[in-house]
């Protein structure tokens, strides 16, 4: 089992130059339509991978650097100020890149040491799919669990 077996070949794409307003629009619209919005691939002008946009990164980006205002009106005003930022400012870029033949053991290793929502599966500079943490967890559970170790023991 390797990254090719676990990855999702369909994912949403957005460009680095789009604003956070557009990013929010895309996430909320995608969510309402039932798409996976947990990891959105950010691409540069050449169409190559620039980073990954996650929900958490977008929340942090909209909250801004300073203290979060306690009043909603003030908070939403500060959000509208942050709307002007581009996706390039907030996207995650530090995650490891994997390839189609990266073995599952390596994927588990990577996820067990750091928190990434998903890892991009690369073919040269292009993304061909995403492996989500949930995919890697499921693969790990499937490998580790045997029929004897499934189920829950209820005591008392």
């Amino acid at each position, binding site marked *: 089992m390797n990254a090719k077996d676990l990855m999702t070949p369909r994912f949403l794409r957005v460009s680095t130059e789009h604003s956070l307003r557009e990013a929010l629009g895309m996430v*909320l619209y995608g969510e309402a339509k039932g798409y996976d919005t947990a990891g959105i691939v950010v691409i540069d002008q050449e169409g190559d991978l620039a980073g990954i946009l996650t929900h958490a990164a977008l929340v942090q980006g909209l909250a801004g650097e300073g203290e*979060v205002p306690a009043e909603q009106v003030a908070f939403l005003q500060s959000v509208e100020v942050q709307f002007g930022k581009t996706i390039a400012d907030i996207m995650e870029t530090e995650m490891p890149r994997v390839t189609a033949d990266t073995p599952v053991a390596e994927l588990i290793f990577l*996820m067990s040491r750091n928190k990434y929502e998903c890892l991009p599966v690369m073919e040269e500079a292009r993304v061909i799919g995403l492996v989500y943490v949930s995919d890697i967890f499921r693969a790990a559970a499937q*490998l580790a*669990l045997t029929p004897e170790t499934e189920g829950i*023991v209820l005591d008392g």
Partner: protein
Amino acid sequence: MKLPEWHMATSREKSLRYLRSDLKADGVAGLTVAVMGVPQAMAYAVIAELPPIYGLYTSMITCVVAALLGSSSHLVTGPTNAICMVILSLTTHLPEKYGLDRFQIVLLLTFMVGAVQLSLGLLRMGGIIRYVSHSVVIGFTAGAGILIGANQIKNLAGIHLKERPERFYEVVVETFRHLPECNYYALIIGFLTIALLIVVPRINRRLPGAFIAVVVTGGLAYLMGWHDPELGVAKLEIVKDIEPIKASFARMFQLPELLAPPPLGLVRELGVGAGALAILGLIEAASIARSVATQSRQRLNFNKEFIGQGAGNLIGSFFSCFAGSGSFTRTAVCFKSGGVTRMAAIFSACWTALTILLLADMANYIPKASLAGILVVIAYTMVDKRRLVSTWRSSRQSRAVLFGTLAATLVLPLEYAIIIGVVLSLLLLLHATGKTDLTQLVAHDGSGYDEVPFNRAPASEVVTVNMEGDLYFAAAEDLDYEMLSCLTPKTRVVILRMKRLRTVGSTAMSMLEHFWKILRKRNISLVVCGIEEELKGVMTGSGLRKQIGEQNIFYADNRLFQSTELAMARAWSMVEMERRRLEPKDGAKAAAKRDIVLAEDILTPRLLRFGNQHQVREATWLVSEMYKRLKSRGSRKLFLQDREGRLYGGLNLWDLLAALGSELDESEVRRMQPEVLADKLRARFHEPITDLCQTDLPEVNAHTSLPELVRLTRESGTQVLPVCDEDGCINGLVSQIDLLKGIGQGLGFRPEHELPKA
């Protein structure tokens, strides 16, 4: 007068084109039908215990009249198995009772059947056929098949019962009691026929099995001299012994003796049976015509089809024909062998007539046992095992209709079985259509609505009830009370969506009026949408339109949900107005307060709870099971609670993966055997999950504000916040996407208008 000329020209053109192209196809198809139909028609006459020649007459006269006057271009009318069985059941005991010739009674019956069918057609009642379930036909045909099969055993074995028993099972019992007296020649011929009918189509599907079987068995019997009257009791019964077929039509036309004047007692006794037989014939003809029309793409007019069938039987009764209907096998053969127009059926009748003229002498030597063999095979195919099984599995109602009809066929006189089947299917129809389905519509953040089961929508100021199906007068008031059950103390406005409701204006009107009065007593407003023209008229007349208020009524629009959208907007503006009225002093403050987004507005109520006394293995199994049921791939969190149900801590996928992957070493992960990997993953399986989980989760309750939630998630680094009540029990969670939704909600954000521009 130019128009008629033009008509003549086209019709002449048409006939020329017909002569050039379709004539040959119809002629061949007609011949194919006749080759198959001649033995079949003779055999069906045997079912009704009538001389075989009458079966041939029926497949000529009735066939031609029905083809000329009917609607379908491919329907071949003539004797049919089920109808012959009913004729037998109706007329067996009447000759003794009235001292009349049985054939004359059959002709009277045929005349009555034709009259009923013709009047139904002329009264334009062809549409009623749509209300008879196909399950009735399948059930009745299967039952008739069993009866025919059982009835033919005696002919197959050459047994003569002195008295015909009244009941079906008595026939079976009597047959088996007389089995030792069986005629071995008959048995041989009968089984040879059955064997030929099974084997011949396997050699080539296009070979006329029945025709070959009667030729072979008839030839064999003739050559062996088994039909010789000198053999006495041991002789084989042939068609000639029943009534000789003559190569002329001299005796075909005869006025039914009983028509002038008909004995009233007999007519009364036949009445129910004739009605049932008429309906059976129409159901058969219509369902066969319909199944061919779906392939030929012909548009059928059932009124015309009724007229064709009725006239066929009515006229047939003057030409020594018994009641007939559309024959499934002959119609199918006609269509498959290339019949183009109704001329094919007429050709089949001509070929049949020619057969009588040319081959009458030979037809006389067909053994009765051979016809019985054909019938046994037909009876077997009449029990449509596949359809019976699939109907049994479909729904409880159609199961009831199908097997109710089948059982009635086996135990009751056949005319009542038909009536029971029709009544059952009408009851089923009433049951299915007499219901109003209620659902609720819930607006979701963007635009559009989710349809949720009735009473499953979250409490809201505006309740939208979607009504679907049929509403009958008697049910209208009960429905009002049922609808009331979706009201909550929060409810201020009820929207009734009536677009998908089929009903008559006055019924809907009385329901609306009643509902409106109840709501008014509770001080709840009513908004209606999807109102059709007819209801609008009735509402105007009664003054209800004024009472509800024109601004609260939205008329049906062709655009999906258009009137619903308007109604919802209206309802919310009413809620708004009421709020302002209640807080008249500080309008600005009220407006600001209204838009405040709190945790309770955005939380996800569904979450995964787990006791904190478990091990890593169990948590791994539980979460992996959860993911099997989830479509989305986003990360989720498991919340642990203590034995009192209070929140203990949270466990996310990375925590679990950290435990599972703790033994992995970077240097070896690229080439690791699956077994080794599995062992390493299991290394910390039996550790308690309390060692892994985060316990210092931020405190959030239903009233925590949106900015506070954002601050807490940033400061604690927790992506999924648990929302707890006063007792510390978790009753929801706020994830990062919930926060984004909250921000969108606070800003009045319309995502579909904010999408990235290319």
